[in-house]
C-alpha cells in the first residue's frame, strides 16, 4: 500500500460504513450497549472493591503481651512487633486503657473496684496485606513476650473472598460482553465484504495487494468500534454522575468515587475496548474472507 492511496482508502472505509448503514448502526448500538454494561460493571466493581478494601483495612488484630512482663518490657515488645513482615503499624494499649475500653464497651463502672492488672498490655496491629493473615500471625507468635493474638479471621477471610469473587465475576462478564461486541463488528465487516465481493475480485484481478484490500475494512471496523466506545463513554459519564447524585445522598456512609477520578482509567478501558473490538473484529472477518 502506497502513501498516496491513503486518502482514497480512508474514503473507501467511510463509504463502507454508510453503504451498509443499518448494519453499521446496529453494530454501533450493540457496541455501545456492551461497553456500557462493561463500563457500568467496572465502575460498580471499582467502587465495591474500594469499599471492601477500606473495610478490610480497618480490620485489625489484637496482640496480647505476656502478663508477667513489666510495663517497660511490655512496651518494648511493640518495637519487635513492628519489625515483623507485613505489619503496617502497631498501637500500644496499656492495661489502664484496656480497662477503660472494656468499661466503655460493656457499660461497666470503673470505680466499682475493677483492677487494671487483670488486663494485659496489648497492641492494635494493622496489616499491609490481610491475605497474609495466617503467616503474619505465626511470625507474631514467635515474637518474645507475645502471649496471645485475637484476629477477626472469619471477617477478614470473607472480605478477601468477596474481593476475589467480585474480580472474577467482573472479568467473566467483561470478557463475554467483549466477545459479543467482537462478533457483531466482525459480522458487520463480513457483510460489507460480501457486499463488495465483486469489487474485491476485480481488485485482486488487477493486482491489488492484500493490504490494499484489507485497509478500508480495517478503517470501517476501527471507526465503528471507536464511535461505539465514544458514545458509550459519554453515556457512562452521564449515567454515573446522575446515579451518584441520587444515591450518594441516601448512602452517605459509603465512599463512592467521583467520575473525574475514573476518567483516565475509563477512557483507557473504553478506548482500548473500542479499538480491540473494531480492529480485531474486522481483522478476523477479513482473514476468513481472504482464505475463501
Amino acid at each position: 500500500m502506497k502513501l498516496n492511496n491513503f486518502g482514497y482508502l480512508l474514503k473507501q472505509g467511510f463509504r463502507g460504513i454508510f453503504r451498509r448503514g443499518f448494519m453499521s448502526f446496529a453494530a454501533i448500538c450493540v457496541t455501545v450497549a456492551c461497553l456500557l454494561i462493561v463500563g457500568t460493571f467496572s465502575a460498580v466493581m471499582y467502587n465495591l472493591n474500594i469499599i471492601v478494601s477500606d473495610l478490610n483495612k480497618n480490620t485489625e488484630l489484637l496482640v496480647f503481651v505476656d502478663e508477667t512482663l513489666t510495663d517497660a518490657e511490655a512496651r518494648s515488645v511493640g518495637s519487635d512487633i513492628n519489625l515483623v513482615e507485613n505489619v503496617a503499624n502497631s498501637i500500644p494499649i496499656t492495661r489502664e486503657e484496656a480497662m477503660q475500653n472494656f468499661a466503655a464497651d460493656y457499660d461497666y463502672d470503673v470505680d466499682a473496684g475493677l483492677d487494671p492488672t487483670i488486663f494485659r498490655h496489648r497492641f492494635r496491629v494493622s496489616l499491609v496485606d490481610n491475605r497474609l493473615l495466617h503467616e503474619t500471625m505465626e511470625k507474631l507468635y514467635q515474637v518474645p513476650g507475645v502471649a496471645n493474638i485475637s484476629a477477626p479471621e472469619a471477617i477478614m477471610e470473607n472480605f478477601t473472598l468477596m474481593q476475589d469473587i467480585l474480580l472474577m465475576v467482573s472479568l467473566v462478564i467483561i470478557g463475554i460482553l467483549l466477545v459479543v461486541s467482537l462478533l457483531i463488528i466482525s459480522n458487520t465487516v463480513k457483510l460489507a465484504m460480501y457486499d463488495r465481493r465483486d469489487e474485491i475480485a476485480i481488485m485482486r484481478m488487477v493486482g491489488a495487494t492484500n493490504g490494499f484490500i484489507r485497509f478500508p475494512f480495517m478503517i470501517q471496523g476501527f471507526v465503528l468500534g471507536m464511535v461505539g466506545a465514544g458514545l458509550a463513554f459519554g453515556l457512562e459519564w452521564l449515567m454515573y454522575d446522575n446515579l451518584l447524585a441520587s444515591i450518594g445522598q441516601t448512602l452517605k456512609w459509603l465512599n463512592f468515587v467521583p467520575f473525574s477520578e475514573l476518567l483516565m482509567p475509563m477512557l483507557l478501558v473504553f478506548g482500548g475496548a473500542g479499538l480491540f473490538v473494531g480492529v480485531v473484529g474486522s481483522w478476523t472477518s477479513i482473514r476468513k474472507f481472504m482464505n475463501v
Partner: protein
Amino acid sequence: MIEFNNVVKSYSEGNQALRGVSMQIEDGEFAYLVGPSGSGKSTIIRLITGELRPTSGTVHVNGYSLERIRKKELPFMRRTVGVVFQDFRLIQDMTVYDNVAFAMRVVGAREKDIKERIPYVLELVGLENKSSRYPNTLSGGEQQRLAIARALVNNPSTIIADEPTGNLDPARSVEIMSLLQEINALGTTMLVVTHEQDLVERFQKRVIVINDGLIASDRMGGYQL
C-alpha cells in the same frame, strides 16, 4: 511472454483438466485459444492469472515462474496481465471514469497520473464521451470496451480476453476483436479465448486448439478442431 512446459493440472476430484500442455506465446503476439467446453481453456487462463498452480510442469508469465511464485508476488505478476471477461465484471455504482481509475488506484497510481492516463485510454476504446455514465446505461459492446479499457489502463504487457464477445451481437463482436487487434498492434501480447469460429476465420491469427486437456493443433489461420 507466456510459456507452458508440459503442464498437468489435476483437480482434487481426480479429473485431469490439462494432461501435459506445452506452448509459448511471444511478446507482442496475438493468439486465439479455442476448444470445446470442458477442454481446459479456463484452466489455462486461471493458471496464467495465478488463480491455480500446476500439478506438474512449469508456467512462466512475463518473467514470473507461477509454479513457485510467492503469495506476496502474485499481485505484482497480475499487474503485468490485463484480463477481460465475457460478463464484463464492471462495478455498477462507479462511473465509466471511476471503473477505469479504480484499476489504477488499486496499484497505487497518483491522481495526477490517473487524470492524464484515463482520457487517453477511454479515447482508445471509443468511450471518451461517456466517462460520466454508469455501466448499466451502456450497451453490451460499450461495457466490453470499458472492461478492455480497465484491463489496458495499467499498461500490462499481456491481455487475456476470456470469451470477450460471448455476450455481444456479431457486429459488436467484430468491433471488439478489431479493438483488441489495435491494442495488440501497440505491442501488447494478446491471448483471446473464444468459441466463435467466424471471428477466428476472419482475423487469420495464430490459433491454438485445445481438446481434452491437450494441444490438438497450433497454427496460423483458421479454426479447425
